[in-house]
Every structure is written in C-alpha cells, then in structure tokens.
C-alpha cells in the first residue's frame, strides 16, 4: 500500500502525460494562435517533467542536460513564433486560425 502513496517514477510520468494532454487539447480546441502557442509550451514542459523524473530515478544527470537544451530551444522557438504571429497580424489583421485558410483553396 505504501508503494501506491509514495511518489515514484510512475506518478511523475502520469502527471507528465496529463499535462501533455492538456496542452494537446489546447492546441486542438482553441482557435487563437497565442493560446495555441501556450498549449505547445505546456506540451514541452510535460516532456521536460518526464525527462527530469527519468533523470532523478535513474540517478543520471543526462536527462537534466537535455531539459536545459529543450528550455533553450523552446525560448528560441517562442521568439521566432511570436515574431511570425506579429508579422501575420500586420499583414492580415487576425491571429485566428479560422481566418488563415488561403492555402486550403
């Protein structure tokens, strides 16, 4: 019974899965590009949590170095993505994916 209560690797992984699902749901359900980006950030953070948990329970530092890299790449990605959104808003005056259908037709 105490194994179930004690926070182990599986507990952290389940939190990570749930957080990833929330992010994915945000990407699928919301229509605002900014909020979709926040969903992406949630998914990246969920992956980070899984990596840190693996790193801790394997007694291996490599997972944490990987998380450091992911955080840096995510920061670069957010900067470029938000600049793209701003450029798009200047051109089309919208940040909603429903209005961006010119590739579809």
């Amino acid at each position: 019974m105490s194994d179930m209560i004690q926070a182990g690797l599986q507990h952290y992984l389940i939190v990570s899965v749930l957080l990833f699902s929330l992010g994915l749901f945000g990407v699928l359900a919301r229509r605002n590009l900014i909020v979709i980006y926040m969903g992406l950030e949630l998914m990246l953070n969920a992956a980070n949590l899984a990596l840190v948990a693996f790193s801790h329970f394997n007694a291996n530092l490599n997972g944490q170095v990987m998380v450091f890299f992911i955080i840096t790449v995510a920061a670069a990605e957010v900067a470029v993505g938000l600049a793209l959104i701003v450029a798009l808003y200047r051109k089309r005056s919208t940040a909603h994916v429903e209005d961006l259908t010119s590739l579809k037709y």
Partner: protein
Amino acid sequence: MPQLTDLLFYGFAALTLLFGFLCVANPLSRNPVTSAMFLVLTIISMAGLFILLHAFFLAAVQVLVYAGAVMVLFLFVIMLLDLKEEERRKLRKFTVGLGAVAVAAIAGILIKATLSAVPLAAGKAVEGNTKPLGVALFTQYLLPFEILSILLLVAMVGVILLSKKELK
C-alpha cells in the same frame, strides 16, 4: 504513512494540472492574458516538482527563463494584438468535443503504457546543482552547447528580420 515530500508532490502536481487546465480551457474567461497568467502559475508549480526531483538548477532556470522571459514575450505580443476578438468568437462545440475525445484516447494509451511498465527501483539521488550540470555541459555536451548558442543567434537575426516593417 506518507512522507512530507510525497504530500508536497501531490500538492504541486494538483496545482500544476489545475493551472494547466485553467490555462487552456478556462470556463470563466477566454481572455489570452488570463491564459498567460495561469501558464505562469503552471510553470512555477512545475518548478516545485523539479525541486522535489532534486533538479535545483533547472527549477531556477524554469522560473527565470519561462516564467520570466518567455511569458513577458507572450504578454508583449498579446498586447499588440486584438484582445476582444477572442472573446467575441464562439468555440465550435463539435471540434472541441472531437478534440477532447482524441486527447482522452491518447492520454489513456500513454497512462496504460506507464502503468504496465516495470517500476524502477529508486537509485541513489543525483543532485542537479549548478556545478555537476555545468561540468556536464562544458565537457560531454560541449558541441551541442555551442550549436545551441548559434541557434540562439540565428533565432535572434530571424526575429529582427521578421519584425521589420518592410522587407526589401
């Protein structure tokens, strides 16, 4: 008898998931600023989880880079865009329902895989302090580290180019 760290884990995990939910699917407000604020809270609760996992340096980086720099960037861009537009729009019930079903299916598969895995015996803890991480970064991971700095430079140049008014 649950230990204090376990109680803290449950507390921070619950906070992370609650704030994450309020970030993407807040039933009361669809304002992007509210979402951004809840994302900050999610990230700070996650830093708590990192501390429970002995990843002290990453917890500090998480708060500084995500809750600090990235969220300021988000808020700046939100302020540049039209805030009221999001609240005027209706969400399509059908799309949201389908999305929820797909996400629930994926989450179910992943949780099933997690639970059916053989649990790992906890090894002796590694301390994610600045020193061991720095040693790993500058010896074993030196090349990825340098590539990453070039990536940041490229991203910076790209952002400056993208945000210019007229491309000539």
